[in-house]
């Protein structure tokens, strides 16, 4: 057997290189879902890129900077935005300019999310894209993804509600501190940093 496949440090290297070049891109597919919390694993990285020659030039620069060897004709294809480009060295990377089932990049970008430094196609779009492929592997995955989506939305609501409660509790504490200071002069309750 040969070398090891993609790992997390390479994911960060890839993102850093793309962000240094100001590349427009979104993680798409199962990898993006897993970054959101979908309990699974994947072997490659799928990126959704706009069909924009200037962005394509940046992609080529970024890829070359992290060890992808591209001939001039391959670079031209990436710049031109061929629908699907698959690279295998130094790790598996799919560049997708027209994913199945999704509208153009700008629309998908407008509803995308970001976790840390990872820009991600939103879950509904990941599901829509997998629905459109008709592949066996996606058909098997879709019920699991839809169940994950429901839990994800519940957790988002739970988190927002928790944040709101924290905020309200914080305001309550600040009001109390102001009142205590007002009543007793030097307050015993320290200010929050």
């Amino acid at each position: 057997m040969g070398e090891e496949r993609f790992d997390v440090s390479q994911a960060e290297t890839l993102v850093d290189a793309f962000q240094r070049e100001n590349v427009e891109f979104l993680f798409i597919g199962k990898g993006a879902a897993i970054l959101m919390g979908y309990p699974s694993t994947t072997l490659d990285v799928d990126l959704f890129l706009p069909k924009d020659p200037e962005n394509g030039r940046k992609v080529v620069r970024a890829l070359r900077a992290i060890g992808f060897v591209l001939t001039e004709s391959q670079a031209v294809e990436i710049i031109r935005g061929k629908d699907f480009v698959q690279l295998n060295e130094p790790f598996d990377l799919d560049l997708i300019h027209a994913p199945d089932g999704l509208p153009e990049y700008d629309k998908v970008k407008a509803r995308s999310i970001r976790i840390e430094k990872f820009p991600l196609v939103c879950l509904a779009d990941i599901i829509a894209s997998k629905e459109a492929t008709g592949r066996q592997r996606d058909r098997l995955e879709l019920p699991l993804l839809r169940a994950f989506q429901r839990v994800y939305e519940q957790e988002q609501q739970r988190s927002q509600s928790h944040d709101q409660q924290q905020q309200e509790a914080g305001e309550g504490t600040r009001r109390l501190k102001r009142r205590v200071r007002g009543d007793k002069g030097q307050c015993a309750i320290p200010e929050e940093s």
Partner: protein
Amino acid sequence: MTDNNQNPRVHSGSIKERNEWVEWEEQCRRQLRRPFEARLKAVWPRQRKPIPVRDDVSYRSFETMEEYRAWCENNLPEYLGYGRRAV
């Protein structure tokens, strides 16, 4: 679990199947509550190359997604699941 577009909660499968869905949702919930850094480590496990056919060349491209799907279907081993035939 089956390829089912319905909400598993109202899914009319067996008790065992419903329990599997409940377990799956719990697994999702636990994973969502882990810190992002912990989740990140699990995305791409260390595995060994090559994938048959896919890794035969270091670069390939397709003018359209349909061409790519057809290539996968006609060239990749069936067990990889890239085919579009019924599950």
